[in-house]
Structures are given as C-alpha cells and as structure tokens.
C-alpha cells in the first residue's frame, strides 16, 4: 500500500528532514511512527499525501509514484486518503457539519448523500448533535474528533493521523486511539505519528522509529 525506498527529504533552507528511509506498509496494517520533536514524522506523512515531494528515492502510495505524479493527479490520490493534520486545519467560521462535509463537496457528492454520510461520520466520533456548532465552541478533544470525522467521511482506504492525541489528557487520548483501532479492525490502513510513549505502548503493533530523519 505504502512503500518508501531510500527516501530523503531536504528542505530548501538546507534542513535534512529524512535521510535514506526505506519501509513498506501493507494494506490493512496499522503502524505508528515515533521519534523526538523534529525527527521527521510529519514530513514522512506529508510525503505520503504528496504535500511534500521526495528529494531522493521513491515513495509509492496505492501503486502511484508520488515524485512523478502529475499535479492534476494529486487531488485524486488525496481522495483515497483520510488526513488528520497536526494543526487541525479546521475552518473556524464554518459549522461542524460544513467542516465534515468539505471532502464530499470537493468530490461532487449529491446533497442527501452528503447529509447521510456526515451524520454517520459524526456518529462514529461521538459528535452527533453538534452539527450546527462552530468549532470554537468545542473542547480540544472534540475538535480532534471533528478532524477525525472529516478524515473518515469519504471512507478512505488509508488514514494518516499526525499527533492525533497532541495535548489531550491520557484518558481522552486513549478514547481517540480506540477509534483508530476500530477503523483498523474494519480494514482501513492506519498510520499514526506520535511522540507519546504511553500511547505507543497502548496501541501495540508495528512502530517505525525515527531519529534525526533516520529510521532506527
């Protein structure tokens, strides 16, 4: 499903974020990416979604070579991925419903279909009944759930989550992690970046450990 082969990423300023990284994630697998702050976790996830392009090496996602993708093909690749961003990227002047509906609108899904799917996604993350609320009225944990609802609303085959338990207390964080476990159980490929050791232990499964851009 996802395969990195001798991938390096050097930013324009000269920052070497990833150095000769190789690994493969099979379809349906759940993998945690870990490492200190600045280790390159976010960069790794961004490469998978073609938000950044590799400086060297080959990134394959769903049999597509990210480095050689035509710009016009990138949106269609992203529609197969559910993204949970480290900085949330919610639209704060839009309702919970509108935020969740965005991926479906972008894909031209009919209106009643959108209503059904948005409610199903909000139900899964426990935000049903918050449809009309604005994100600012939600707690940090609820905002995180909203991000997850938006990521899963188009039923993607792959979920990429960047620090989804960021500033949450351990109990809340575990409930978020349980959600990812349940998505994994129904066959979704899940990749979670986290620097939180306790979460790592809670999740179990395979871990990719990064240190200064090098896979340990």
């Amino acid at each position: 499903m996802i395969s990195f082969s001798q991938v390096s990423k050097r930013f324009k300023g000269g920052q070497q974020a990833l150095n000769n990284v190789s690994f493969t994630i099979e379809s349906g697998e759940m993998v945690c990416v870990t490492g200190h702050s600045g280790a390159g976790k976010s960069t790794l996830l961004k490469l998978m979604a073609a938000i950044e392009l590799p400086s060297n090496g080959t990134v394959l996602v769903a049999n597509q070579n990210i480095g050689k993708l035509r710009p016009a093909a990138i949106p269609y690749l992203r529609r197969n991925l559910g993204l949970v961003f480290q900085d949330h990227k919610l639209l704060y002047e839009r309702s919970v419903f509108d935020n969740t509906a965005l991926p479906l609108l972008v894909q031209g899904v009919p209106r009643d279909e959108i209503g059904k799917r948005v409610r199903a996604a909000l139900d899964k993350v426990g935000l049903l009944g918050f449809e009309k609320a604005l994100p600012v009225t939600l707690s940090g944990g609820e905002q995180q759930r909203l991000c997850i609802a938006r990521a899963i609303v188009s039923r993607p085959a792959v979920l990429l989550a960047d620090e989804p338990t960021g500033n949450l207390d351990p109990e809340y964080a575990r409930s978020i992690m349980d959600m990812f476990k349940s998505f994994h159980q129904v066959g979704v490929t899940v990749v979670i970046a986290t620097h939180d050791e306790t979460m790592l232990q809670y999740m179990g499964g395979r871990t990719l450990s990064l240190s200064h851009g090098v896979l340990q």
Partner: protein
Amino acid sequence: MSWLLNHQRAFRLALLRLLQTPFATLFTLLVVGLALSLPSAMYVGLKNLNHWLGHLPISPEISVFTQTDDPAALRTLEQSIRGEAGVSAVRLIRREDALKTLAQQLNINDLVDGLARNPLPHTLVVTLGPDTPPDRYSQLQQKFAALPTVLAVQYDAALNQKLHALRQLVANAALGLGFLLAIAITAVVANTIRLQILTQRDEIEVSMLIGATDAYIRRPFMYFGLLQGLLGGLTALLLLAGFSWLTQPYLAEFTQSYGNTFIPQSLSLSEAIALPVCTAALASLSAHIAAMRHLHRMRPSL
C-alpha cells in the same frame, strides 16, 4: 451528473458571496458600471458624430462635364459611370438648367438672354458611397476623364480628404475605447478576485489538502467574475439610459436645427445585448486568470 452538480454549487456559492456582502457588491458594480459607461457613452457620441458626418449636405461629389448633346450618348455615359464600384448616385444637370441657375444666382438674366448660344456643357453629378477611400476619388476622376465625350472632371479633393480623415479618426477612437473598456473590467475584476482569494485562503488551502482539483477551486471565482461582469454591464446600460434621458432635450434642439434629417443614435439592440455579454465573458476570463495566478502562488507548500 457530478459535473453539473459541481457547476451548480459553484454558481450558488458565487451568488451567495455576492449577496453576503451587499455593500461591497453594490460598490463594485457601480465601479464596473461607471468604468464601462464612460467609454460606452463616448462610443454612442462617436456613433452620432459619424452618423451626422454621413448626413452633412457637403458630401463630396464628382462633376463630369460632357460635350455631347446627343441623348443616346448621354445615356451611355451615365450608364458607364453608374457601373463603377463605389458610385451611389448619378444626377444629370442639363445645360439649360445650369444656365438658368447661374443667371439667377449671379442676377445676370439680361446678359444670359442676350447670348447667341448656351456656353455651358451638360453635367453629370456623381455621388460616391460614404465609405469610399480618397484614392478611389482620384482613380475615378482619371477613369471618367478617359470616357468618350467627356470634357473635364472636377471634385473637391481637399474636403474629401478631410471628411475621410475625420471618419477614420472616429473609427480608431471607437476601437481605442473598446480597448480601454476591456482593460477597465479586467483590472477591477482581477482585484476583487484577489481580495476574495485572500479572505478565503484557509478554505482554499484545506480544500486542496483534502482532494479539491484546481478547477473546483477556480470555478466559484469564475462565476463570481461572470456575475460581476454581467451585472456591471447591465449597470452601465442603466447609467447610459439615464444619461441619454438627461441629454434628450438638447439633442432634440440640435436635430431641429438640422431640419430633423439627423436622427440621434443610441445603442442598437444587438449592441445593448453585446455589452453585458462581452463584459461577462471578459470578466470571467479575467477572474479565471487571476484565480489561476494566485492559486499558483499559494501552492509551493502543497
């Protein structure tokens, strides 16, 4: 079907954005309308000037003097003149009539009566179409001079040159105005699109990250431009109508002084339709290009 749905949604979104900021929209439409109505009013003015030039009693003529008195020969001559390209009318002034007119004009009836024979020739007065270029006049002069029985050919070359130059100027000025008009719309629309994109930066960025195509993002801006162009064009028509209503009494006075042979011109129906249609097309194109440029600039991090 999702294609149609996408366009419907983009159109509705564009309309919503226009309505969400009614004062800004009204202001923009007024600016676009004014920017358009000024050159349009000048265009109507030029149209009237050109029309007026065409109706001046001094439209240049060529006089062909002939020595023949034979009706058949006169008819042949008239026919061969009529056959030339650009000739719109040929009028025969018989020598008797010419002499009478001359006698009256100069008040020398006694003198004329005393003449043994009429010294004047028959004259064929040739009028050319309004758009005949000046060199055609000299061409025709030479041609007519070479025809049998022709004594001499005369025309006012200087007046003809001047009229032609004036017409040419009018046509060029109209073209230049069209150009100004295009630049005005492009600038105004591109600027509103730039502001729109700035205020919707976050939404655009998130949309791109979750799989929106460039076309999807550009579409509402294109419709936004299209609506602005269309409504701006209609505003310009309204302003123009108001302007011509205000100037109506003065024009009526002016036309009366010309014996009402001159009918004031306004935009024709096809011109009135063409104005908003063209501005809508131009504005959506401008919006499309502006959106493309700004999105391109936003892209590097994505």
